[in-house]
């Protein structure tokens, strides 16, 4: 428990330190929803059209942040990463507010999480944890109801940084 709390504090400190840097960068790209970058990777910028053209998945689940069952639609993260040739290592997912979380690629399954762009058939707005929200099918299994999963359920996602191959 204590470790968990410490992690949280570290994360907070990190965010507070780096927040101004990223916010400046994000402000320039208006229609771009997601930027994928990496050391040995050409930075990719994906807009809604690109994303919605990709193979999508839809599922219904409850979340701890909402009331009642919600349906989510989006591109599985695995598909997204595969499209840019990332099959191993870990990625750092960062939100508009500079919340960031590292996800090992090995822990990403074919179907979960998805980079959701629709909730209950509606495009996700910034005010509603959009435009992109990394969602897991929480109801599907208890393993999706852990704090690690919750911390990886990053909303207002706008960057994916491949840490290492």
């Amino acid at each position, binding site marked *: 428990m204590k470790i968990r709390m410490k992690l949280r504090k570290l994360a907070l400190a990190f965010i507070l330190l780096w927040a101004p840097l990223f916010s400046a960068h994000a*402000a320039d790209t208006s229609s771009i929803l997601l930027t994928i970058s990496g050391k040995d990777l050409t930075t990719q910028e994906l807009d809604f059209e690109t994303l919605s053209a990709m193979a999508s998945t839809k599922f219904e689940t409850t979340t701890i942040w909402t009331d009642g069952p919600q349906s989510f639609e989006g591109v599985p993260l695995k598909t997204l990463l595969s499209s840019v040739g990332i099959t191993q290592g870990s990625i750092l997912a960062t939100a508009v507010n500079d*919340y960031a979380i590292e996800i090992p690629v090995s822990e990403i399954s074919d179907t979960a999480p998805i980079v959701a762009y629709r909730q209950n058939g509606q495009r996700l707005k*910034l005010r509603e944890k959009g435009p992109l929200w990394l969602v897991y099918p929480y109801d599907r299994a208890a393993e999706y109801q852990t*704090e690690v999963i919750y911390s990886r359920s990053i909303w207002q996602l706008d960057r994916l940084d491949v840490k290492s191959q």
Partner: protein
Amino acid sequence: MKRFYTLDRPLQIAVYLTVLFSILFAIFTLANKVWDDVNELKTAKSDNMQWTLSQLEVDYLNLKVEQKNVISGGEVSLKELREKFDVFYSRVAIFRQGPLVNLLASDPKADRILDEIWVFLQQSIPLIDGDDQTLLAEIAALSKHTDSLDDDIRSLALSGINLSALASDREREDVSQTLIMIALLKVALLVALLVLSWIFFRQYRRMMAHASDTQIASSRLNAVVTSALDAVIVIDHSAKILEFNGAAEQIFGYSKEQAVGGDLAEMIVPAKYRLAHREGMKRYLETGEKRVVGKGRLQLEARRKSGEIFPVELSISSAESQGGEVFVAFLRDISDRVADEEELKQARDDALAGEKAKAELLAVMSHEMRTPLNGMLGILELMHDTHLSARQVQYLDIIDTSGKMLLHHVSDVLDISRLDSGKFETDKKKFEITRLMTEVCDGQRPSASAKGNRLTTKFVDLKDQIVLGDDIRLRQVLLNIIGNAIKFTQDGHISVQAERRDDDIEIRISDTGIGIHGSDLTRIFEDFVTLDSSYGRTEAGTGLGLGITKRMIQAMGGTMGVESVQDEGSLFWVRLPLPEQKDGELETNSVEISEPLPITPQQILVVEDNQINRFVVREMLEKDGHSVFEANDGEEGVAFCGRQKFDTILMDISMPRLDGVEATKIIRESGGPSANSPIIALTAHALPDEIFKFNEAGMNDTLIKPISRVLLRKAIRMASDIDDERFERSQDAKTDSIIDHNVLDELWDTLGEKAAADLIRQFVDETEIELDWITSDQRTKFDTEFVNRVHKLAGSASLFGAVRLRELLFQIETLCKTERLEGLSELIRELEQAWQTTKRHLL
């Protein structure tokens, strides 16, 4: 715990089960809770509140910074502002739905602040979503508005810490409670386990003890069965042998291996009992009726392997075993016992037969010896009357003495057999005790002097006392003991003392003779005992002297004993019941009257099978002037009596063909010439009941052999007197007493109270009938039948001492015989009166 053990078994089990289920339930409940908790920990139900709240402040601060940036006009980027707003908005929205709502709802202040923030956001939306111009124009106001939320945001963030702390406290408490529960349950479980293992341990020890007891009992039982002297056979309900012990092997001859599994009936039950045995088993199995089982000892027969049948004693009991009911039979070979019993029975029968033979021999011998002796002594008596030289007289005396001694010995033997058969009768007479003893001592003094002995007498409290007892037996006893004392004393002193002790008299005869060795003291009273020193042989060799003496004393109700020191002398003491008779008159013993009386010559018939006796009697009678006729036996006697009238008939009792008793009956009933003649019995048998039998048969008197002339003469005279003096005596008969009580007393003494009473009653009944007939008014004939019946009644009357009645009957008889019938009717009347009086006296 002790009390716990005393609980009923079902209750014990119930307690165990309850405890067990309680523990199981507690474990299950706790496990469930732990499982739930684990599941709870596995999944997080909400996001991190603290983080979210602090992030709320971060987002708020970002928004504020952006607003300040716009106001300061540095780098105007409304897009950034809008983005920050949206981020803040979405952050606040998190608290308005999902599980976090519930968390904050518990804190009213936080809830209120959240509402205010939400209101601010809603109010700000039109401005944010509006055009840039308006937004720029209103940014200062918006910023100001935003700034006013500073404290609220801060407080909300702090409350997050508080809530989180509370939550983690609760969580910790919850976990610690669960852990405490687990610990408690663990302790409880441990205690339960300890209790259970303790119970199991106790149970185990009890079982072990029980098993050990069973083991010991079993081996003990096994040892008992194995070493039992009786055969022990166990069979099942189909009579199959299950157990066969060592004794059974020995008794029946089968080895255990042969016997076990075999059929009981086939092996040991004799063929003749097999069917009964099988039916018995069948009946028992069908009805449960037990005839042999559990009924204790039985005696039956069994069969050995060799086929030999032998007697057994057995008992059978039934018992429950694993294979159902079994029968346990204990059998004992009692062949030896049965044989012993048989032998013992045989020995007893032999002994009894021997005793009987001995008694018979003694009786016969004494009788057979007395008969020739009587002849011898009779002849000797006759010889005295012949002309003899002095030397011949001397020889004759020696023969006479020897003969009498021989007779004495024979009498002793007869006495023994009578004493032993209980037929010995003692008399009760009045006599002077000191005189009797003085006489005996005087008689013994010459033989005492001959051996140089002094013989003295001493009497204490006895002067001139008249006592009641058997003087003849006492005389005999004294003679025996004093004779003994003289015989074994040389040049010494014999003292005879008598002393009254209450109703008894104690007589002590002491001598200074050779004495008796201590070990012989008890033996000397046994029969045929002759000690080395010949002490007991006072009777010149029979060894019966002291035996007879002791028996006689016992028959008289007395006791006898001896004390002696060898070489110093002996003391014989006798204690006899001889009560003093204060007003007693002496009865003079007049038997030995020898003065001659005038003798009327008679016609006398002697019926006797023994030629010598016949000759002796004849000689005696002829000497007195009688005419003697001889008959060889009863039949001849009867024939004689049928032909002629005899004045007296002497009748032997034991005779071939027809004995004296039967002959007498025939003569009396014949109505012949001698039918009413006096008949005198001659016999060696002289028991009172025999004499009574003789009288019943019609005999008038009894003479006991040996017969002396004096006694013979007296008997003949008395028998004739009755006949001759009958009439004369009847003259003053009226004044006679009704009953002779002496006769009646004698009857009572002889027969005993009950028999005498019965007899008297019978006599009364018969007399009534007879008198009815005799005194009948219609009587005209006074023939022989009448006379016989009168005579017979007179005989009966005399037997019961009814003297008055007898006299009257005799008179009637005489009148009839002499045909003087004129006085008859008066006598008959008198007879009737006399009977009434007699009857009263008798009853």
